[in-house]
């Protein structure tokens, strides 16, 4: 499509007509500042196509303040080589005329034709809105809406699809999506997204399961009922048989027979027991007789033994007597030996005692001599001590006195010096013979006198001169000197010396005496620490001890000289010999005692044995005893004969009883009794069980289980049929949804391919390496851009405003290419497009627009003409176009 001429009149700011011709078939750029009329021109073109000529809603076209105007638009354009002239007048006497190569369409017919030609619809009434705009709505970009594309695409999708199909030569389904939606809805009513049953399908499945459970429950109850019936039948049969046969009677009869037999056996057992008792008595008697006979035998044996015993006792007594005599003789020898040993020991001991006393005497004498020497030394020292103390007393001088004396002396010396310094010097040089008297003293010759107090100088014959020393304190000094001198005298007297030097000497002598005294005291302390008296006592004690020892020694007699040679060596050896002799004597003493006691025992035994033997001999020889023995022997023979007879009878009887097994017979009786009891009990219990079963079955039978089951089964089958039908429907819907989606996806892919191709023509210029997906409604989808090794996916809406505007334009150009390829008219109008693009992107977009302009006519309106000077076309200023012409 190519717009060749535009003329508008009485529209907004164009009260006068505006005509634009000489449109180029490619890019046409119109520039002008805001309010210059760019948008009015765009609005006029849109109104010419979209608005119904009859509508009263387009008052926005009116010039300002002129409500009676008749906005008029004239458009000349070419499509596929055919020339069209569109003339449209709105509001006041509205009309629409379309001429196509001599063909004239008027009014609504003209509008319908236009719509089909360009691919848009008209509003049923009122103002045309976006949803009617179709293809032009997509290709004519209004100011500030370049980034919005999805809605425009949605409104144009059908037209785009139609174009695509023409290009593809295939037919898309007109109903497909609606059908698919319905099928999905139907399926969703039966299945969840994950394919699980829901709604009616789930309900009917649950109903099937529930009825199935009920059926199984009923089956189980019916089975129980049947089993109980069978059980009852079997029990009833058994009961009838027992009622007839009465099996317990046979057991009773068998028991009675056994009991009779058992009674016979009991009688025989009693006889046997009596025989056994008699036998036991006989055996007891036999034992008694035998015991008595045995006692006779034992006495005979005892007599023999007693004889032998007596003989042995005689022998033993003899031996004991001999033994005792021998030991008594030995004892006498040993007593002599002991006496000798004791004598030797006594001698040795006395000798040793004497030697010890003499030793002690020597020691004591030494001690005595030492004590005497010490005592003499001590006496000397005590004397010295006493002398020294006297000397010290005589030299005694108090140290305080001495100090005071020393200070007085010192003060006097100082006083004298001060007096001399302050004294009036009286120098005189008297002629010989001349004498002066001063205070009574006579001065002659030459000399000096210091005057410390007023003196009267008597000049002979001249009178007197009184000299008073000038220093005021001289008199005080003199006074002090007097005092000090008096004190010095007092102290010297007290000490008892004449001078300080003498006092010092005495003090030195005193110290030396005291030192000597200390030395003497130290010696004394060493020599007699406990004093002289202690020493004296020790000496007297030693003296008395020595006297004692001498007395002791005197008492110890000297050993007789003749026996000295017989001394058995040392005291220890004598001691040992004595001990041995004593212990030998003790040992022998014990043996002697024992031997004597043995002899006594042996004699006693002999007496007893002799007596016992005699007694027994008497007893055995008694004739009554002999008679008794004879009687016992006869009795024994009789008893044994009776035992033999009775024993045989008992054995025979026992064997017979063993054969008859009374224990087993007892068991038989118990067994038959229990069997009869058991049979009766079984019968009774069975009767109860039958009654129970009958009543249970009556109750169960009245429930009509099988009839109920038949009913439930019908319901179950109906439910299953319903479930199968629904399940089949669900499966069919599954299949339909799957197939519809598959086929639809296949078709969509085929449809999108050409658009993708056109899109790929532009996209690399803007986003090198990028890929733009196409949504199902053919609108742009995710943008994939290389980002390092991977690709970055951005949804269209997530892109920046500028990028969306750029992609929106690229997409529209691709749609235009697609439409063009399908032989559809394309006109692209860009009103103030790409104002949000940065310079580098704008450069790319300009290349893209330039390329598109080689295939499509593009009207570009801008208020930034400087941006578009490099598009190779002249930029027309709206202001200049307004000039009437």
């Amino acid at each position, binding site marked *: 499509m190519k717009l060749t001429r535009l003329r508008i009149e009485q529209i907004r700011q164009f009260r006068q007509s505006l005509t634009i011709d000489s449109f180029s078939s490619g890019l046409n750029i119109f520039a002008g500042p805001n309010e210059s009329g760019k948008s009015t021109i765009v609005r006029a073109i849109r109104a010419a196509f979209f608005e119904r000529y009859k509508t009263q809603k387009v008052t926005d076209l009116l010039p300002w303040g002129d409500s009676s105007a008749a906005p008029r638009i004239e458009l000349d354009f070419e499509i596929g080589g055919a020339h069209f002239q569109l003339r449209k007048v709105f509001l006041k006497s509205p009309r629409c005329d379309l001429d196509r190569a001599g063909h004239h369409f008027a009014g609504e017919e003209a509008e319908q034709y236009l719509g089909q030609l360009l691919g848009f619809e008209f509003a049923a009434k009122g103002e045309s809105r976006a949803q009617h705009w179709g293809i032009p709505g997509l290709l004519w970009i209004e100011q500030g809406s370049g980034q919005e594309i999805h809605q425009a695409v949605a409104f144009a999708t059908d037209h785009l699809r139609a174009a695509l199909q023409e290009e593809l030569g*295939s*037919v*898309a*389904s*007109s*109903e*497909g999506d*609606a*059908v698919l939606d*319905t*099928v999905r809805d*139907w399926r969703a009513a039966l299945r969840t997204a994950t394919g699980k049953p829901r709604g009616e399908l789930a309900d009917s499945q649950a109903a099937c399961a529930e009825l199935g459970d009920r059926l199984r429950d009923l089956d189980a109850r*019916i089975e129980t*009922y*049947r089993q*109980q*019936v*069978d059980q*009852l*039948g079997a029990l*009833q049969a058994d009961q009838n048989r027992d009622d007839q046969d009465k099996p317990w009677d046979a057991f009773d009869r068998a028991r009675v027979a056994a009991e009779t037999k058992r009674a016979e056996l009991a009688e025989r057992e009693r006889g046997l027991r009596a025989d056994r008792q008699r036998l036991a008595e006989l055996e007891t008697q036999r034992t008694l007789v035998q015991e008595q006979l045995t006692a006779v035998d034992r006495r005979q044996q005892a007599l023999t033994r007693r004889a032998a015993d007596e003989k042995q006792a005689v022998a033993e007594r003899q031996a004991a007597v001999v033994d005792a005599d021998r030991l008594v003789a030995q004892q006498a020898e040993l007593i002599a030996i002991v006496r000798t040993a004791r004598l030797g020991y006594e001698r040795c001991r006395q000798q040793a005692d004497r030697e010890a006393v003499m030793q002690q005497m020597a020691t004591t004498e030494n001690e005595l001599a030492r004590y005497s020497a010490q005592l003499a030394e001590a006496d000397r020292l005590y004397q010295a001590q006493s002398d020294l103390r006297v000397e010290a007393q005589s030299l005694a001088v108090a140290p305080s006195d001495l100090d005071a004396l020393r200070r007085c002396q010192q003060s006097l010396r100082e006083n004298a010096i001060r007096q001399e310094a302050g004294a009036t010097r009286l120098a005189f040089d008297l002629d010989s013979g001349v004498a002066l008297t001063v205070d009574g003293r006579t001065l002659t010759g030459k000399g000096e006198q210091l005057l410390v107090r007023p003196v009267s100088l008597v000049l002979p014959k001249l009178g007197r001169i009184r000299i008073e020393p000038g220093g005021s304190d001289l008199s005080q000094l003199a006074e002090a000197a007097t005092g000090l001198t008096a004190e010095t005298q007092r102290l010297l007297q007290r000490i008892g010396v004449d001078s300080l030097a003498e006092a010092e000497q005495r003090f030195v002598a005193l110290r030396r005496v005291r030192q000597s005294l200390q030395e003497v005291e130290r010696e004394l302390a060493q020599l007699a620490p406990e004093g002289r008296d202690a020493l004296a006592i020790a000496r007297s004690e030693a003296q008395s001890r020595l006297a004692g020892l001498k007395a002791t020694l005197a008492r110890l007699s000297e050993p007789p000289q003749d026996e000295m040679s017989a001394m058995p060596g040392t005291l220890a050896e004598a001691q040992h010999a004595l001990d041995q002799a004593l212990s030998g004597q003790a040992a022998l003493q014990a043996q002697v005692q024992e031997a004597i006691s043995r002899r006594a025992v042996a004699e006693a035994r002999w007496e007893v044995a002799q007596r016992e033997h005699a007694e027994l001999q008497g007893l055995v020889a008694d004739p009554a005893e002999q008679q008794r023995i004879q009687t016992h022997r006869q009795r024994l023979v009789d008893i044994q004969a009776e035992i033999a007879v009775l024993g045989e009878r008992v054995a025979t009887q026992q064997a017979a009883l063993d054969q008859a097994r009374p224990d087993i017979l007892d068991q038989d009786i118990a067994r038959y009794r229990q069997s009869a009891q058991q049979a009766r009990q079984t019968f009774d219990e069975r009767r109860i069980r039958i009654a129970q*079963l*009958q009543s249970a*079955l*009556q109750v*169960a*039978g*009245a*429930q*009509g*289980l*099988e*009839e*109920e089951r*038949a*009913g439930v*089964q*019908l*319901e179950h*089958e*109906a439910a299953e049929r319903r479930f199968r039908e629904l399940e*089949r*429907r669900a*499966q*069919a*819907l*599954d*299949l*339909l949804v799957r*197939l*519809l989606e598959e*086929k*639809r996806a*296949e*078709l969509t892919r085929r449809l999108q391919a050409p658009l993708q191709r056109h899109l790929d023509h532009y996209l690399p210029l803007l986003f090198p390496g990028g890929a733009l997906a196409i949504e199902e409604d053919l609108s742009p989808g995710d943008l994939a851009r290389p980002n390092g090794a991977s690709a970055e996916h951005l949804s269209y809406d997530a892109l920046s405003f500028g990028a969306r505007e750029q992609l929106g334009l690229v997409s529209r150009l691709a749609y235009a290419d697609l439409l063009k390829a399908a032989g559809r008219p394309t006109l692209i109008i860009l009103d103030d497009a790409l104002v949000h693009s940065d310079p580098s992107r704008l450069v790319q977009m300009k290349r893209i627009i330039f390329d598109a302009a080689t295939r499509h006519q593009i009207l570009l309106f801008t208020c930034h003409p400087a941006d578009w000077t490099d598009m190779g076309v002249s930029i027309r200023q709206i202001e200049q176009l307004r000039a009437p012409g």
Partner: protein
Amino acid sequence: MKILHTADWQIGRQYSGFDPDDAAPLAAERYLAVERIAALAQSRQVDAVLVAGDVFDSQTLRDISIRRLFNSLEGYAGPWVLLPGNHDAALVESIWTRAQRLAVVPSNVHLALQPEAMPFPDVGMVVLTAPLTQRHTFADLTAWFDNADTPTGLVRIGLAHGSVQGVMAADIDAPNPIAANRAETARLDYLALGDWHGLKQIDARTAYSGTPESDRFRNNDAGQVLEVEIDGPGALPRITPHRIGRYRWQALRVDLNVPSDLERLVASLTALNGDDVLDLRVSGRTDLSGQTRMQDLIAATAARVRGMRADFSDLHVQPTEADLADLQADGYLADVIAELQARQQRGPASPPGDAPAEIAREALTLLAGLLKDRQAPVGDEVRG
């Protein structure tokens, strides 16, 4: 003398495979059939009615069902002899003992609960009974008939329930066997049998009456009772069947191949009425319009007949070009329809895991219906 011979009333039987609305009347009809038998006995002035087993369908019916059965006998005051069969065997506790406990057995109704010779001197006959006292037995319960002495001058009639050996089903071990020549060996004038639900005469003196009201899709002359007339001992019985049953159980097998096959099906179905019970199985192939028409027809038939089972699992729906044009299925919808058709053709040979042909047919039907509905509004408006 003449008697009515019937059997296998199966009172309490429920009918599976049908809509519950249909199953209930079918079950109720069995009582009505008994009432019709009583009415027939009355009108034909028979001397007795012998029922050869399976009076009841099961042992544990509700009390009300038992009462209702005995009420249904009221129309005939003459003697009834009811024989327990395998469904209602005379067990130690059975539906019979329950009926006795309920005291609902009228004095003219004789329960043959044990093998016995039941004399009816007024009628001039003696009935030898062979009731089942166990659910199944492999002994011939009629054997004792051979040695049973009965008063001379009375017609000997045997009453038994089981399968005649060598004549009925080939299974040798069939329970409840009856010797094929029992009538002869036991010198019976007539042996009235039950168990086989169809009417079947074994020999001149032996017959199965069948059930008086059909209960299955088998063309075996069910739904009748036998009037048996015997002039005296030794005379051959004259046997006359009477129709009692109301419902006709029809099994219809239709293979659709050419358009006229559908027309024939239409004719068959439109001929059916409320006394028909239908088992329909349609196979072959049809186009969409045929399918639609058939669906309408089936729905109409189901509403008209007493009960219906229908099976279309072997039917393939193949839309024609005209169908598709009619549906205006274009674009990928057309692709889907083609795919569904192809899947139907694959039949059982479809790859495992893939939806079976039946599902494909269902899907195709659904899709076609949906497309048709989407076109419908215009037409509906016109009609509305």
